[in-house]
């Protein structure tokens, strides 16, 4: 058979695609099978009698519980005079499933985090972490290996109860999909808590990291019991969860949520939200696992996370979800808080050689004079502007009245940008003046709370108590420094009083004459802080320039001070 060149090219393309996919599969296989942490943990856990004994004990407890539940219901049936026993049988099936799910839940939610936290803390206690740091093993591979080995163990724990759970099929009422949903939810939740525990244990430099992680997990579980349906992964995608212990809406099938205006199944929302949380916690953990003193995120990770958060906001309030243009500042509060968190993360540390900004500065001479945290903040504001504008043009208020929506968006962006730069300068100031990074973080955090939350709230309540008309312009003239904090405006805008009073309100119309004073004062303060920060911290020594080598085997080096010391010794001996 003769094949044409076109067929050959098509075949080559197919085989290339296959080889690429086969290569990807092989690499993913290597990632798991040849991950040293994964292998070591499996070997360690599966070796000896410990696992066997634990599993026998666990199955024994489960069988005991199942026996007890069945016994109670059988006794009830024997006492009852009802002819139709099917309702009791169905109730027995439900109870059996619930009890086993609860026991499994408690066990799995505690065991997973304890194991993962212990993996990190044992490395620290044994002083073996340094060895791993100098290998080419990436921190994320460590996290992946630790999580994957733990999840395999958790899966084993869940599957061991399957024979006991299958008793419920005899009596009806429980379907295989219920068991799949229960197992899936527990596995996802356990992975989230394990990733959280891993991150917490990475934060501590030395031992006791496992205890901290355990406290964190217990805290989360208890908090979830108290604040039902609050701490759920689906919050990220705009939904709410199910129950306290199993906060997944997928347990109640048929639910849907809207993402970018498209309805998607609650199952996918649960899984997607969980994976996002796991990825975020793993990222945070991998930043600190080898270097506990590292910043929580590196620059590009911070930017990616910020962009992701903006996309999440856009996904939630896409199309008709945004009902009024006056809601724009209220939604922007989330971004403002995120910007403050980013400032705390990035602006409270000093110059670090070798990071991404250092590399940029090394490459582009014109960037060397600009503070690295300012570069980061400007990049985040740029991302916000691009994604925010894109989102805005796809919302109902914009499509109804573009100029009003655009005006409110512009003003909100401007005010928050000014406040962000102000906060950035403040954090930079503390970073240079405080004795350590921790102190700078604490001072910045306290000042943010004081300036942007506590004082505005007190003042606004005072104004309201004194029954002073709360127009933003008046607030500004009275409060000078604090008046420019967007929190004040957003608070006022969010209140019915102002919105009702001002109707088609726009910032600039109210800001009127005091605007130049506010802007001038903000700029002055900004530069004042920046100047003080620079004054204390001399220009960082980046060492970009090439230095001469000192070849010691060709020309020995002796410090000049050594000669003078020897001369002094000789003089002393002679005298």
């Amino acid at each position, binding site marked *: 058979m003769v094949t044409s060149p076109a067929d050959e090219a098509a075949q080559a393309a197919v085989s290339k695609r296959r080889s690429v996919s086969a290569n990807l599969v092989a690499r993913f296989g290597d990632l798991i099978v040849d991950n040293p942490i994964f292998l070591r943990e499996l*070997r360690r856990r599966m070796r000896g009698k410990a696992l066997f004994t634990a599993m026998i004990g666990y199955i024994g407890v489960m069988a005991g519980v199942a026996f007890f539940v069945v016994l109670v219901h059988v006794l009830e049936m024997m006492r009852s005079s009802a002819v139709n026993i099917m309702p009791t049988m169905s109730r027995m099936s439900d109870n059996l499933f619930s009890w086993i799910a609860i026991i499994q839940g408690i066990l799995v939610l505690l065991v997973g985090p304890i194991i993962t936290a212990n993996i990190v803390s044992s490395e620290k206690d044994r002083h073996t972490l340094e060895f791993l740091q100098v290998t*080419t093993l990436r921190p994320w591979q460590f996290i992946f290996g630790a999580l994957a080995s733990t999840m395999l163990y958790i899966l084993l724990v869940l599957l061991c109860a399957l024979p006991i759970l299958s008793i419920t099929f005899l009596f009806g009422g429980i379907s295989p999909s219920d068991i799949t949903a229960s197992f899936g939810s527990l596995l996802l939740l356990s992975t989230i808590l394990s990733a959280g525990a891993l991150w917490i244990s990475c934060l501590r430099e030395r031992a006791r990291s496992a205890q901290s992680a355990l406290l964190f997990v217990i805290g989360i579980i208890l908090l979830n019991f108290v604040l039902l349906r609050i701490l759920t992964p689906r919050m990220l995608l705009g939904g709410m969860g199910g129950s306290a212990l199993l906060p997944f809406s997928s347990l109640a099938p048929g639910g849907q949520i809207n993402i970018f205006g498209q309805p998607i199944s609650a199952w996918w929302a649960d899984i997607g939200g969980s994976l996002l949380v796991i990825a975020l916690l793993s990222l945070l953990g991998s930043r600190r696992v080898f270097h506990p003193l590292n910043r929580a995120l590196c620059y590009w990770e911070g930017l990616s996370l910020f962009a992701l958060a903006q996309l999440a906001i856009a996904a939630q309030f896409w199309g008709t979800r945004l009902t009024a243009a006056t809601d724009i500042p209220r939604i922007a509060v989330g971004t403002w808080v995120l910007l403050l968190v980013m400032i705390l993360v990035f602006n409270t540390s000093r110059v670090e*050689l*070798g990071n991404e900004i250092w590399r940029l500065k090394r490459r582009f001479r014109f960037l060397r004079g600009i503070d690295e945290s300012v570069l980061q903040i400007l990049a985040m504001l740029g991302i916000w502007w691009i994604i925010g504008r894109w989102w805005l043009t796809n919302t109902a208020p914009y499509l109804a009245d573009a100029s009003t929506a655009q005006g409110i968006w512009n003003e909100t962006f401007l005010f928050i940008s000014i406040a962000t730069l102000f906060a950035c300068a403040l954090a930079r100031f503390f970073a240079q003046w405080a004795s350590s990074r921790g102190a700078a973080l604490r001072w910045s955090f306290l000042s943010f709370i004081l300036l942007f939350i506590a004082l505005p709230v007190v003042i606004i309540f005072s104004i309201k108590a004194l029954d002073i008309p709360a127009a933003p312009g008046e607030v500004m003239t009275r409060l000078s420094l604090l008046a420019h904090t967007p929190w004040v405006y957003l608070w006022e805008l969010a209140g019915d009083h102002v919105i009702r009073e001002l109707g088609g309100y726009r910032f600039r119309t109210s800001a009127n004459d005091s605007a130049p004073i506010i802007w001038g004062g903000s700029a002055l303060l900004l530069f004042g802080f920046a100047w003080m920060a620079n004054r204390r911290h001399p220009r960082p020594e980046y*060492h970009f320039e090439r230095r001469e080598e000192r*070849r010691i*085997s060709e020309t020995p*080096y002796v410090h000049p001070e*050594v000669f003078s010391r020897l001369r002094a010794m000789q003089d002393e001996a002679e005298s």
Partner: protein
Amino acid sequence: MIAIKGLTKQYKNLTALKDLTMTINQGDIFGYIGPNGAGKTTTIKILATLVTPTAGHAEICGYNILTQPDEVKRVIGYMPDFFGVYDDMKVWEYLDFFGAAYKIEKTKRRKIIDDVLELTDLTEKKNDFVEALSRGMKQRLCLAKTLVHDPQVLLLDEPASGLDPRARIEMRELLKELRKLGKTVLISSHILTELADFCNTIGIIEKGELLAAGEVNAIMEQIKGARHVEITIRDADNASKAHDLLIGHEGVTGVQIDGNQLMVEIDITCEDVSFINEVLTTNGIRITSFKESEVDLEDIFMKITKGAVQ
């Protein structure tokens, strides 16, 4: 091979390392000497990419420690002064673990493990648990782990600390083997005799500052500015006569008498010292021993350092 340029490390109010600049050639065995707290471990940790410098940078095999840490990790083998091991693993599993961490292909790992076990004389212990090994064996296992990815540069921070004399000698022999393999080694220690044997270059550091670096003899020449010859004469009464004969001779800068022993200081530019023997014997002074005093690492160390710690 190791080019350090202006390396500085500042911890709050403490300068652990101050503008360290030096280049160590390929194949050199560099002994890094200094009192406790001098900055040896900080230097090694910075080179091993474990600690970020406050200023300056270094290149190992042409790779920058700041911009190419992954490449640096591939070419270095690091052994810290204090370390732990995974007790619940077998010796081969331990090495296999690090082989996987260095992304060595699974098929090649078995052969490499056998090789490094043979080099470190641990072949018989291959299937034993790590916890069953003695301290010296654990130290050798740690060195085996350091060699598993065949690094070109070894950064060894006090590799023989805490070992008994026998294990110390075994470790020294192992390091000599590594020298034969052509590895570049930076080894820190404050036991000078340990280094004197096999280091061709040394660096002395104190309070974070490099005081001297280079070949031992070359440093000594720079410091002393003279060579020394120790002579023992048969008759102590002739000592003053010998002193008078030598002191006026060209090239001799000083003579000290101690009983029947003379310490003759000769100008560093003077290459041939046999004239001393000639002058003394032709004048009837009988010599029982004649030797040029060897350069002593301890002597250099004591001369250069003040004994101050940070």
